[in-house]
């Protein structure tokens, strides 16, 4: 793709957003509503990607890319599957205690890859479910069913069980081993998880949010004060659904900041890291940054430009502590458009203009690595596409353009209640 003639910002964003949304059209199983984790052959479904898909359908309706009926149909198929599929401690169930396994077989909907019962991925799925419930609000039979199912699916999640007797939530559970024996520590994308857990009308865990914030690190790095987390997706995922502008909990009140401003600073720190480029990777710079969970070249050691280089596969790359192997996640920098459009958009234009061969019809790959060149290529580029990348691009561009998802979630009674319970004030609250 070559960005010529130069598109306006809005036209460029429209094409990028539409291309990202198309992922959900082509990697979807109409029998159960599941969406594939990646576009690669044989990929299972990721329940988090399903959550992004459920949130993307309203965007597509509002943008005229899909009829409301088609979106409703897809949503109903998905919610019916989620409510009717097996919930048990059996190792091949779809979920347990209202939570879902991270990866499901695209056809059968059963647990696959020996994956864990994932709390964060369930939270992202629930965010999508609640978005659907907030969007389909007319009194037709279908839209009423969406709201009923959304409420049912949210209410049946047993958050208290997931605490495993502790103050904070566990990261997951496996039928073979029980709870994964590590919890959420430090700031992360789990803010939406804690919000949803504390608002549950059936199994609330109100004190867990405060316990979690007790693990935060407030740092001054590269001259900026911020709540530290390395990978950019951590500063984005919860913000795809919740408008945190001006909202402060106890921690943020103490620091005189808010989570939205924090993500803005984190975005600038990513750019600053690229400018400093401590490991001297190729093509890091003012408009070439984006370090996040993304695909990578794979586990490999090579000597390049007189230096030993170690590459990784799919990994949560972050700054400034790494891992960093020269891989850039273009979707991550674009998804920061809502926080810092003045640097996110130039970065996306840079990728489009300097790497037209890796961006197919405006759809961004999960990762590319200019340091790793082979067989005459200018850089290594991830094969296919990843649903999480496409989902975050659709939602964040929409929030930048119309705040649609934010507005929908403001209407969801659970979210406001949870934030207030957590001691949050300000913003739309």
């Amino acid at each position: 793709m070559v960005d010529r003639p130069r598109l306006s910002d809005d036209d460029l964003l429209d094409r990028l957003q539409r291309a990202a949304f198309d992922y959900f059209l082509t990697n979807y199983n109409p029998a159960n509503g599941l969406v594939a984790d990646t576009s690669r052959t044989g990929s299972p479904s990721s329940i988090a990607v399903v959550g992004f898909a459920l949130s993307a359908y309203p965007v597509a309706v509002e943008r005229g890319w899909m009829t409301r009926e088609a979106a409703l149909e897809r949503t109903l198929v998905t919610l019916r599957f989620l409510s009717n599929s097996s919930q048990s401690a059996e190792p091949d169930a779809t979920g347990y205690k209202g939570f879902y396994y991270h990866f499901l077989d695209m056809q059968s909907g059963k647990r696959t890859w020996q994956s864990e019962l994932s709390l964060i991925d369930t939270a992202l799925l629930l965010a999508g479910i609640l978005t659907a419930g907030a969007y389909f609000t007319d009194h037709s039979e279908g839209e009423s069913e969406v709201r009923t199912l959304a409420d049912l699916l949210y209410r049946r999640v047993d958050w208290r069980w997931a605490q495993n007797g502790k103050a904070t939530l566990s990261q997951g559970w496996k039928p073979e081993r029980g709870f994964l024996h590590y919890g959420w520590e430090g700031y992360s994308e789990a803010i939406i998880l804690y919000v949803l857990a504390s608002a549950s009308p059936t199994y609330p865990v109100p004190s867990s949010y405060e316990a979690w914030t007790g693990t935060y690190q407030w740092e001054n790095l590269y001259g900026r004060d911020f709540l530290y987390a390395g990978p950019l997706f951590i500063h984005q995922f919860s913000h795809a659904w919740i408008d945190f502008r001006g909202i402060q909990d106890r921690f943020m009140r103490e620091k005189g900041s808010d989570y939205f401003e924090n993500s803005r600073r984190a975005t600038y720190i990513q750019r600053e890291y690229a400018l400093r480029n401590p490991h001297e990777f190729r093509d890091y710079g003012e408009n070439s940054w984006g370090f996040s969970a993304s695909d990578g070249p794979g586990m490999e050691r090579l000597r390049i430009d007189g230096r030993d280089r170690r590459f990784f596969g799919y990994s949560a790359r972050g700054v400034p502590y790494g891992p960093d192997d020269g891989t850039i996640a273009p979707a991550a920098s674009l998804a920061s458009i809502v926080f810092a459009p003045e640097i996110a958009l130039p970065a996306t234009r840079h990728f489009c203009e300097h790497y037209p061969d890796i961006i197919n019809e405006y759809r961004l790959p999960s990762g590319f690595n200019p340091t790793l060149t082979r067989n005459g290529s200018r850089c290594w580029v991830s094969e296919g596409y990843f649903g999480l990348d496409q989902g975050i691009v659709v939602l964040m561009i929409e929030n930048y353009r119309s705040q649609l998802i934010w507005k929908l979630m403001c209407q969801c009674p659970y979210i406001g209640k949870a934030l207030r319970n957590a001691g949050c004030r300000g913003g739309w609250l």
Partner: protein
Amino acid sequence: MSANSQIGPSTWQEPVSSHVTSNGYDRTLLQRLHPAEWRNPEPQDRYNLVVIGAGPAGILTARNAAKVGAKVALIERDRLGGACFNVGCISSKAIIRTSRLYAEMRNAENFGAQVPTGISVDFSAVMERMRRVRARISQRISAQSLTLMGVDVYFGEARFEGPEAIVVDGKRLRFRRALVASGARPAVPAIAGLAEAGYLTNENVFDLNECPPRLLVLGGGPLGCELAQAFCRMGSQVTIVQKDPMFLGNEERDAAQILSDALARDGIVIHLNTEAINVRTEGNQKLVDLMGDDGKSTVTVDEILVGIGSAPNVEGINLEAAGVQYDKDTGIATNDYLQTSNPRIYAAGDVCSGTKFPHIETAAAQLVVHNAFFWGRARLSTLAIPWCTYTDPEIAHVGLYIKEANAKGIPVKTFTVMMHDVDRAVTDGEDEGFVKIHVREGTDKILGATVAASHAGEMITELSLAMTAGIGLRALSRVNHPYPTQAQAIKLAADAYLDSRHRPVRRWLLKQWLRW
């Protein structure tokens, strides 16, 4: 020399053969730390202080007490120096140095140098150097040197005989104050087949004369990480298994992550959130079944090194007779003054539940003498005690961790400087790591600090000094550091504090002031 010390044929026959090799350095070592001809002195009427255990805490306390003129007895059942000196810190640091040299040789090209051809590790030479170094340093803690300082040194099993007396080698030592510093022994996990297959601990790993081609390290604490990296760099194919999600237990997450990356870069196979559940042998091989989050797997190795921690040496001392309460798993409970449940008896070092670091033992020695003899009320919790894990990069810490401050309700702000922003670290090719200084929010008071850097153990001292002397970041920013040095990272952090104070109003005022 104490009046009743004697050198002569010993009547004490406790075997120490497990440590004895034919190596000449070890003979020298043994002669200094447990002379074969040693004869225990006749006890004085009543000692001001009797110390059980001649590890770092015991020796330092005995020395300090002798320096102030106290009548002191020091009892050791094996070798002076304890595990730290004989089978711990000194031994490991010696081989870590050599292993670092091998790593640098292999990495020479990244420094613009030639990689030496045919690098091969002479493991026995590495171990011989370690024994030479250990023997050399042993002079400072020899039985003779302690005796010359006025310490009555006894070899034998100590046993309380009431709250005021200890018996050793048939002699009854009466005391006004006592210190239990009997140390700890390696804890061994209950893994089916481990005992039958055989394993190494810090007590015998330094007796090896051949580097195991494949080594499994159980435990990702300081000992496990240090030795895993050292053996890997000396040619072992190392796998490390840690049951927790990160290395180094309580260390800060980012430090543990940097260490994890460093170990992986060296080629160590890392299994976090994993436990060994079974061991079996096939010929000379040990097959270890692991259970991790991704299920069961098996690793085949030649040796297994256990480094999961230690168990306190509380049995056999008859602590009950002295009214000293203890737990066989966690050790002797002490208060903040290091007093046990018998206030005239103190405890320090690995035998205690809360002071299991050699760095703390040094501080504890000073504290015990102060509190025991001078009605002091010095508290352990008020001391700034640094510690360090000697991997590459090293991980050092002093003071509070962020999570500790959060738990106490203290608002914290951290000033972070990456080593890649420190010129000398870049020129040295040692730019992995960071300096993090935690201050009370809104002030420059240093609450704690973590340094992950090639020489973190040296760098943390400046921050320890600052905390001890009550120096804040504002004053630290006025301390000139030689340029370029890696310690300049600390000044950069202090400068970042000053910059953060330059809020918009202040910036505006400065701008107005500088309009000339």
